């Protein structure tokens, strides 16, 4: 700012209330609160907070680098907005739109103040545009990061969820698989099953795939590898819950499940496992 | 991509294969690879070191701990100045062997690592490079 302080600083101070009202008008017009994901009061509070933070930050005279200490509070505030927008299920463009919609009210005030000075108006408009674009970009970036964090956390939770190796009987373990299997997940599932076999000294493992919607070549091969690894360790494996469509797919894919014991459901598999372990079940007479 | 540390190990005797395995194991432990990833990588190293010794007539193992875009990895290069491999495509096929092995050395090792590269010039030698990322 060679010519001293930007007029934006003054405008933010002078027209704070007007700007806020116009901005809220813009937000309403764009339908920011129309589907009830965010209440009018909340939107108003956020807008009020942002205008006042912006006013504070611009006092420093630094309007072109939002990475500095003066802008810390604004950045933190925008990070907070992004997090809450993610939680409320907004899209990234809607989140950026929150900042962009302050442009029109601000430019209107600039024109009002600088109407006759065309050069000054152009310059100030440019400064304002750049500043708001940077702030919007920061918001979107933060929005994205929050989303990525959510995805990563969910992936981790899913991986933990996906490996419940349960003991069905002395020497019999079961792994009820649920959901789509990919390489990474199958590897973790496989490792935890094999480890449990060693830890418990179980000689029979049942992999139940009732909850697996589809089986492609890769998944079928993973299953086959798991069965082979279990055999190498000296235990046996039964696959149960293969649905008709999956049986068809496996045959069409040409995956050879020859030599792998398969059973229609978990109950049949358990019954076979018990028989192999030397147990017999009888119904006591009432 | 930057190299954090590196060294060279000779592969000239059967004992060297064991030493190479142990060195690679130690590096994978330092990089905190999972026990399965450690085992896979050490096994691949063992296969390739044996190839270097038996088919390449001995050579060297160059190892590097590398950093690429925030992820760490271990890169091994097995280099020999032996007769080379005339038909790489054939050599990479499961079950094909020029010696007395099971023919699982090259194709099998490839499945145990993340990146696998092989260059060979008949009469000049062979270099196999494998990488596993953390």
């Amino acid at each position, binding site marked *: 700012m060679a010519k001293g302080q930007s007029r934006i600083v003054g405008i933010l101070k002078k027209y704070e209330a007007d700007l806020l009202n116009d901005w809220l008008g813009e937000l309403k017009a764009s339908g920011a609160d129309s589907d009830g994901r965010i209440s009018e009061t909340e939107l108003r509070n956020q807008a009020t907070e942002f205008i006042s933070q912006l006013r504070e930050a611009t006092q420093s005279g630094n309007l072109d680098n939002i990475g500095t200490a003066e802008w810390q509070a604004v950045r933190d505030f925008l990070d907070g907005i992004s997090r809450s927008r993610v939680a409320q299920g907004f899209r990234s463009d809607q989140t950026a739109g929150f900042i962009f919609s302050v442009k029109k009210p601000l430019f209107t005030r600039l024109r009002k103040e600088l109407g006759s000075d065309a050069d000054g108006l152009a310059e100030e408009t440019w400064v304002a545009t750049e500043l708001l674009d940077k702030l919007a970009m920061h918001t979107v970036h933060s929005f994205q990061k929050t989303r990525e964090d959510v995805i990563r956390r969910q992936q981790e939770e899913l991986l933990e969820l996906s490996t419940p190796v349960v003991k069905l009987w002395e020497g019999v373990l079961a792994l009820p698989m649920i959901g789509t299997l990919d390489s990474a997940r199958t590897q973790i599932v496989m490792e935890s099953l*094999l480890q449990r076999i*060693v830890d418990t000294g179980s000689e029979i493992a049942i992999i139940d795939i009732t909850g697996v919607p589809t089986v492609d070549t890769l998944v079928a091969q993973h299953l086959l*590898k798991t069965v082979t690894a279990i055999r190498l360790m000296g235990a046996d494996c039964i696959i149960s819950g293969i649905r008709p469509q999956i049986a068809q797919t496996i045959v069409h894919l040409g995956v050879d499940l020859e030599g792998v014991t398969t059973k229609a459901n978990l109950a049949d598999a358990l019954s076979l496992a018990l028989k192999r372990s030397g147990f017999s079940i009888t119904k006591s007479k009432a | 991509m930057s190299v954090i540390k590196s060294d060279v190990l000779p592969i000239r005797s059967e004992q060297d*294969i*064991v030493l190479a395995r142990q060195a690679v194991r130690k590096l994978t432990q330092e990089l905190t690879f999972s026990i399965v990833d450690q085992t896979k990588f050490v096994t691949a190293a063992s296969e390739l070191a044996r190839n270097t010794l038996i088919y390449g007539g001995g050579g060297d193992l160059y190892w590097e701990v590398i950093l690429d875009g925030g992820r760490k990895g271990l890169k091994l290069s097995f280099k020999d100045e032996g007769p080379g491999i005339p038909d790489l495509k054939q050599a990479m096929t499961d079950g094909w062997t020029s010696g007395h092995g099971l023919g*699982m050395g090259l194709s099998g090792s490839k*499945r*145990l690592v993340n990146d696998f590269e092989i260059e060979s010039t008949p009469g000049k030698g062979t270099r196999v490079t494998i990488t596993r990322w953390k």
Partner: protein
Amino acid sequence: MDRIPILQMGKFLLVTIQVDLHDRLALTLQDDLTAKIEKTNAKGVLIDISSLEIVDSFIGRMIANTSSMARILDAKTVVVGMQPAVAITLVELGLTLTGVQTALNVERGMHLLRTSLADKEADDVCDQV
């Protein structure tokens, strides 16, 4: 040169591999085992590999070959205690040790050997009658 000790327990031989096997040591073990089967007229061999951190194609082949040789010499081989990471790696490598009998631990392995010996003796009796 060092050797892997082979213990005799009645009609069975017991080998525990605890060192990182180099290739010649693996081959020596194969020679020693087959010689000892013949000498002791052993009917079963138990190879404990629970301390082995890796099994590559060379060691895998030695194990498979030893098992086949023992079979020809009328002894049954059981390999016990393979670590999960080793099993996963072997499968990925493409080695499934076809024809090699495995068990989770020494106890289960011994049980397998005893039952198969009992079955065999019963068969032999039938043959004589």
